[in-house]
């Protein structure tokens, strides 16, 4: 496992935590707690994290891996879009960065000779 593959996963996981905080409001009012919108953002961020985690950590075959990454990117982008309209800037940034990392990571991975 290479560090570049793990960074997007960490970002998405952080996004899922932020989405959980936005939805549940454990540290106070977020302005969107217990709303459908925050629930959808949480769902999207958790889905992106799980899909990216499976793709990164479970070592699926290349075709499966690409499909999982594509779905993870889609979920992350939708969660980011939701976060923009929920005015959750950090969450949006985390999901966008995670999605970008998922797309970019393969280009930086060196193929063993």
């Amino acid at each position, binding site marked *: 496992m290479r560090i570049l593959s793990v960074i997007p996963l960490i970002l998405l996981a952080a996004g899922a935590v932020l989405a959980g905080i936005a939805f549940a409001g454990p540290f106070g*009012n977020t302005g*969107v707690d217990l*709303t459908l919108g*925050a629930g959808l953002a949480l769902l999207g961020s958790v889905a992106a994290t799980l899909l990216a985690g499976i793709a990164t950590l479970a070592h699926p075959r290349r075709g499966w891996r690409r499909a999982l990454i594509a779905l993870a990117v889609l979920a992350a982008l939708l969660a980011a879009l939701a976060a923009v309209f929920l*005015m959750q800037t950090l969450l949006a940034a985390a999901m966008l960065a995670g999605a970008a990392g998922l797309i970019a990571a393969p280009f930086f991975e060196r193929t063993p000779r």
Partner: protein
Amino acid sequence: MIRSLIPAALLLTATAAQAQQDSWTAFHGDLASTKFSNARSLTPDSVGRLERAWDYRTGDVSDGSGDLAETVWSATPVYADGTLYLGTPFYRIVALDPATGEERWTYDSASTLEPLTQPALKNRGVAYWNGGDTGPCVRRVFLGTMDAELHAVDAETGQRCADFADGGVLNVNQWNTVNDVFPFSLLQPPLVVGDTLLLGWAGADWEYSVAPPGNLLAIDARSGDLLWEASFIPPEMIDRTGTANTADPELGLVYAPVSSPSPNYWGGARTDPIPIATSVTAVDIASGEVAWTFQHVRHDIWDYDTPSAPTLVDIPRDGQMIPALVQATKQGFLFVLDRRTGEPLFPIEDRPVPASTATGEVTAPTQPFAMTPTPVGNPLELPPVWRLSDVVSLGQCSRDREKYLYQGIFTPPSEQGTLFFPGTAGATNWGGVSVDPDRAILYVNASRIVQLIHLIPRDEYDSEAREGGNEEGYHPQEGAPYGIHLTDWSNWAGMPCWAPPFGTFSAIDLTTGQTLYEVPFGKAQFHGFYGLGDWGSPTLGGPVVTAGGVVFIGASMDSRVRALDAATGRELWSDLVEAPAVSIPAVFTHEGVDYVVFAVGGNSILKPEVSDQAVAYRLPR
């Protein structure tokens, strides 16, 4: 009776004195309802540094999911003689240290917590009286309850004032002797003019044809004795007189925003003119005699009841200062009158309006249109269908637009279904306007909500309403040939069918009547998602303007309290609070420091969030 003219110099002196206040001793800050604060440290340059001074929870909140009905807390905090007083929707009084938010005392009225006349437990705060003497209970806080009790409490100790009425509690319902189908609910604090408490009441909207006659009560603040009762519409019926009043002690007049008659949406049983209904009416404070009245809706069948206290301001004209009154209305018209006589200061046009097709209804052929100042919220033009909402609903909104009746403002309710704009919450509501008296500039927030109203024949109403009831928009208007179904005009997903903006904020020069700006205000919020900046938000609550050139306002759906640049309407600062701050803030100076305090109660009309939060802001020390 038309009162004789009072020398302008006297009036100028009175108005200036009202405006130069550092306290906030009444619902609208002062007797003139200017909602103007003399706080000068709060300027467009400084408010970006505002910070929370304290955050206090009353504990008196219900979301309606348990045994108690939902709470609607719209109190304006009252600051007087170094203490901040809050009324709560559980009908308690809380006295706080304005600098720290620490409790000094609390008082529990032990009132019933049943929504006897309203769908929710409501409170808009308390009133303060200073008797000017020494001894116990020379300064009093008055609290009204849903079950028609007025409590008098010592402002120092929180103990009942035994010399007021029956051991400190006045049963106002003793004067509810005609058509007493519901109690006189005291949700709005009384207006205190000298030693007189001026008291209106709230009832049950939309439910009955027959209701108690509208009246205004004058009560002795020391004894609780009834001084006089002004019956506005005897023996007809009216559903409330309970919004705030305004007074000019120099003229000896109280200005009452009078409600519409019952039933609200069908007037076939009251076709004779009722000149004082849906009016602003001046009443002699000493005697209770009506001095003049100005009716701004004839034969009201839209519940366009006068929603807010009029605001008093002196307007320069032809080298003289004219003592004026501005009455904001649900229609979006701002009527500017000479407050001595009720004569309009800008032209008012009588325009033909559509006739009704409902059984027995006889609509007024014309209605008064105040085109100067420019109406707020563009009420004369139905907003176009919102393309986004129309696409989402596969054209439902466009089909609705063709299907339902709309012939301009004052289109009567119909069996076919009428698009109703401005809707029943109005372009403006009880928050009213604020005025900078030095500049004669008016500030006002307005909503743009389109509703859909159906008249349902009585023999069909019960079977239709059985499915939904009040929460689904059904109201019986018992005794009338029609019940009603009233909802926002929305698509299957709950999105508004009309195009934004949903709310605006305006500044108007009262000297010329010209609008200085009208900008979208706040952010709409649906299922947590915020609307775009130019969509604006419907609002409930009112603004306060300061001498430093800043407007403070909550009122929007997005649970923010804001400071705006009074010169441009631009947002300078905001803070997220627990629920929509459906209230008017109090702005005052305590120990040399300017404070802004909001009661944050929420209101399900905007979104289903409630709170018991009071939050205070000040500049860093």
